[in-house]
């Protein structure tokens, strides 16, 4: 989503949550969307069906199901 479409979406979506936006907000958000929007859309479109969820995620150690001993 880009340009006026994004600005209108952002304004209405935030208004629905009771969050007001001004022109500065919309300008900054538009830049952010132009930078990060394509990668977010690629993330949404990616096929993760082959990636098992890590049910016991503990960032302090290696995954228990990595399939590699050290």
């Amino acid at each position, binding site marked *: 989503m880009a340009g006026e479409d994004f600005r209108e*979406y*952002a304004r209405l*979506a*935030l208004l629905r*949550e009771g*969050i007001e*936006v001004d022109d*500065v*907000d*919309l*300008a*900054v*958000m538009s*830049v*952010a*969307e132009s*930078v*990060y929007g394509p*990668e*977010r859309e*690629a*993330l*949404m479109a*990616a096929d*993760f069906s082959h*990636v*098992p*969820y*890590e049910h016991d*995620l*503990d*960032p*302090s*150690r*290696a*995954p228990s*199901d*990595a*399939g*590699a*001993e*050290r």
Partner: protein
Amino acid sequence: MNAGSDHPQDLTLREQARAVAAGELDATELLDATLRRIEERDGPVNSIVDTFASESARMLNEAPEGPLHGVPIAVKDMFTLPWRAPRDGAPRNLQGFGPGESAVYRRLRDAGAVIVAVTNMHEFGAGSTGHLSVYGPCATPWDTTRCAGGSSGGSGAAVAARLVAGAVGTDGGGSIRYPSAYCGITGLKLTWGTVPPDGYTHGHASLGAPGPMCRDAADARLLGEALAARPLPEQRATNLRVGVVRTFWENIDPEVHEHCDLAVERLRESGLTVAEVELDGTEFVRIATVLRLGLEGDPYVKPEIWEEIQGEVSPVGRALAKYLSLAPATAVVRTDLVRAQLRRSLARAFGHVDVLAWPMVPAPPPPIADPRVQLPSGEVPADYGNVRQGGIANLSGVPALSAPCGFTRTGLPIALHLLAHWGEDERLLDVAELLEQATERRYVDAVPPLAHATAVS
């Protein structure tokens, strides 16, 4: 020590600790000299936001014998201290933390250290540049018109300017490592969970971890041991294997690329084995880091505090908070799968190599007035370029280090990024020390113009 200087802050952290322990350096004089140097030198970099001479003196009087006995340390504005609430580079912290004993405070105190100052940081920790802060922008001492990095920019700049020899930063998306790269110092993000989260404003997050920021790896080891409350034993690194992940060498400023290539070559010449490694899921590192970093803290924000201070928050910070709230929930859920993929892929890679290496940041520090960087693909916001390089260590939890490895033709620092297996933080320090030796310490001992000018005056 600088030629022409006998100031104790021109000593390394370990030299200060040794001299105090041996009775060759009076700890009270060291504290006083540190406070004077901050007063005299910090203006152009704006790295220090608070000093508290009486509380520091009390800490010194009560300091136990320990590896950092009597040594001044600065801490980022994200930790509770008994006499001060953190502000997160903003008018107030959003979680409602008051004064208290954070784990970082306790570990420094128990090591005998003296907390001498609180350092500047990017507003709410939400940026890799340090140019947005309620205290004003923070500059790298290598060029005070350019960013110190973020979010731990003050800690990086304070060490580089030789205001203190050691500072504590935090790293939720690269926030220790970017300012270390921009300021030409050594910064280590410890393995996630090494330091307990209490009293850390982002302690709720699954990405953030504190760590040491010092001039070189030996100092980072000393301060890192105090923070980790465990030894980080030194081991000669020459039998280790380095993995080069080419994805993270793409779209890099040519000078940065060249110096990082040379650094890896120096490691190879020093006896390390170098091999190419591939990782899965790297294309989503940036967006997954941004989404998780931006949203994990949301449930911990007290709405009444946000209401109270939002008028004083920077317009950019306020707008980005609103922007992140637009993220679809399904995108956030997908970041869990990105993490799972990256973590498994890293675990497999560390079955074949001991450390991974690539450029820490894709380009040198950008101007404070316009924090964008020029990459081969074009001009981008510095955050956009940086987070691709650093976010993987936060998504996965592994330790990661920024090691100085060169300078641009205009005298700006360049750094190599090193990552190791969970819990093998000391391997990163071993490799960084080997790199220092292989480059004859010319990058870790370099003195920025600002520090040099006042050191010899």
